[in-house]
């Protein structure tokens, strides 16, 4: 079982005819995801992937014809804001934005608007979600993980793969993996996902992967302390990162004394979370916490 996405997810791909869009659509379908349509303005009426997926000009039309409830966005950064808003207006409940490099001002407006409309955005700059054995939305490689009882939530991409793979090598599986994205402003926070894992009957343990920058991990620690009864294991990347330098992700920067790994680790440990020294220690720590 899973959170946010499952066998019944009906997915549309915004930017399906782009290089990334078409490649990952094919991977998602191979995994068993129901991709019901694609959207690329100006290419409505075409069919892609050997005629399996219809393309529409607008999200509204795609939703009307196919009954899609989830969207994944692969369009370039300068068009991504518009794509998210279009999905919201078309009534899509869950929008997953893979696109990296969206201006922060745009994201602040989008987030505010989405909160008013009641849509959920995961990302941007997210690797997407994966419910092993059921559904894959985004770019997380399917074969590096297996179904199980561990919920994974992360701000990172390949670091998340590292953790999923380390778990698999120890025969441990995952209920759902959620990549919330590496940008300073995102649609879904650690807290949102932690709350979902807490009430999910098929998630018994939670793995949280954070990194330097901002105070999301500190707020997650507070939330865990007050609301989470399931055991949580965490890793925070960036202990060695110097202040004032952006470490790749727009959100990974230590500014004005805030966002240090040491502060996040201390807050999580205070909340009773088992924080490990490096990602490959996560499986053994999960094993200890029955």
């Amino acid at each position: 079982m899973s959170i946010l996405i499952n066998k019944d997810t009906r997915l549309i791909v915004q930017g399906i005819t782009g290089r990334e869009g078409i490649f990952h659509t094919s991977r998602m379908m191979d995994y068993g995801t129901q991709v019901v349509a694609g959207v690329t303005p100006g290419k409505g009426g075409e069919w892609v992937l050997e005629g399996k997926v219809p393309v529409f000009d607008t999200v509204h039309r795609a939703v009307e014809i196919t009954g899609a409830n989830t969207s994944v966005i692969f369009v370039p950064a300068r068009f991504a804001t518009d794509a998210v808003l279009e999905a919201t207006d078309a009534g899509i409940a869950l929008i997953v934005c893979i696109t990296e490099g969206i201006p922060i001002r745009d994201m602040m407006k989008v987030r505010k608007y989405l909160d008013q409309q009641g849509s959920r955005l995961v990302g941007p700059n997210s690797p997407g979600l994966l419910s092993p054995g059921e559904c894959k939305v985004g770019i997380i490689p399917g074969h590096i993980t297996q179904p199980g009882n561990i919920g994974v939530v992360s701000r990172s991409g390949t670091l998340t793969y590292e953790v999923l793979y380390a778990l698999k090598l120890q025969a441990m599986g995952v209920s759902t993996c959620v990549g919330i994205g590496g940008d300073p402003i995102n649609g879904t926070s650690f807290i949102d996902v932690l709350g979902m894992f807490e009430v999910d009957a098929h998630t018994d343990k939670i793995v949280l992967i954070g990194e330097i920058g901002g105070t999301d991990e500190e707020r997650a620690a507070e939330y865990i302390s007050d609301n989470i009864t399931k055991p949580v294991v965490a890793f925070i990347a960036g202990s060695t990162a110097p202040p004032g330098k952006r470490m790749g992700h727009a959100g990974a920067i230590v500014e004005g004394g805030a966002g240090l790994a040491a502060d996040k680790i201390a807050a999580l440990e205070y909340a009773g979370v088992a924080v490990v020294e490096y990602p490959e220690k996560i499986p053994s720590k999960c094993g200890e916490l029955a």
Partner: protein
Amino acid sequence: MTAHEAKSIARELGGPVVIKAQVLVGGRGKAGGIRLVHTPEEAEEAARQILGMQIKGLPVRKVLVDEAAEIRSEIYLGVTNDRAARCPVMIASAEGGIDIEEVARTLPDKIVRVHIDPLLGLREYQARYLAVTIELPRGHWRDFIDMACGLYGVFTNSDATLAEINPLVITEDNRLMALDGKMVLDDNALFRHLDLAEMRDLDEEAPTEREARRYGLSYVKLDGTIGCMVNGAGLAMATMDVIKLFGAEPANFLDIGGGAGAEKVAVALNLILRDANVKAVMFNIFGGITRCDEVARGILTALDESKGDIPMVARLVGTNEDEGHKLLAKADMIMATSLADAAQKAVALAVESQLQ
């Protein structure tokens, strides 16, 4: 810009002037980069000294010569983004002039904040609230509100992540005057501000970081001995942390991004090898979109060009890892099975090569 020009500008302005170093870092005053002088001759001398300075490692190539204001009080006014609140925040303080982060630490009560709805923008009543709370004399409210709204306008119109006036002063002849300002722009938004993008001063960036950016690599030079190449920012940071955990320091942060081809990988390896402090190199590639064989090809290309004696450890997992391993078997490379294994081996190699 020469010291002689500073002299003639000072003469034109008449009276006392300030000479200010124009570099893209804060803390110029503390570093001696801002001087008050009283005659054109003094202006020339001060400009000569400042133009020869380095501030936080950056050479001063330009100075600003401006009328000196007789200052009664200094105010701070700035706007930035509050990540936790997901909106801009405007900050004012009656304790202007110096480092606002210092004020925030030592005198938190002296800082006033208003959060701004990103869909509504800054409203006049919010600016008025700031003026009242920092106890600005009533006669200056109108000007202050106009400046605050103007500052917010500049902040949003140019996609800044910081816009500040510091100090905003009340002069002895009772005028409200912006004496200095600073802005930081959002790199992700530069595509719609080509005029601002053009103003990037390439001289003020480290050459390696500039070259990295041109190839779409994310590189930050650090002071350690182990060069590392990783795909993905989070994994790159984790790799640095593991190197440190096993007793050495990373020489750099380097994220080659997703789906990097052989050419990009070769450029990345050359960047690492150019750093004289590097005693060992570690590759940590988790192939998803990135293909391990492409990475291996790039490594081989770079090694063909510059065959050094720096020892290297590679850990390749994921897409096309077998082909990657086969290719690297041709090179003199130590293979590792896990992140921890790779870091331990790299640290041992670096220690060994330092002993030699």
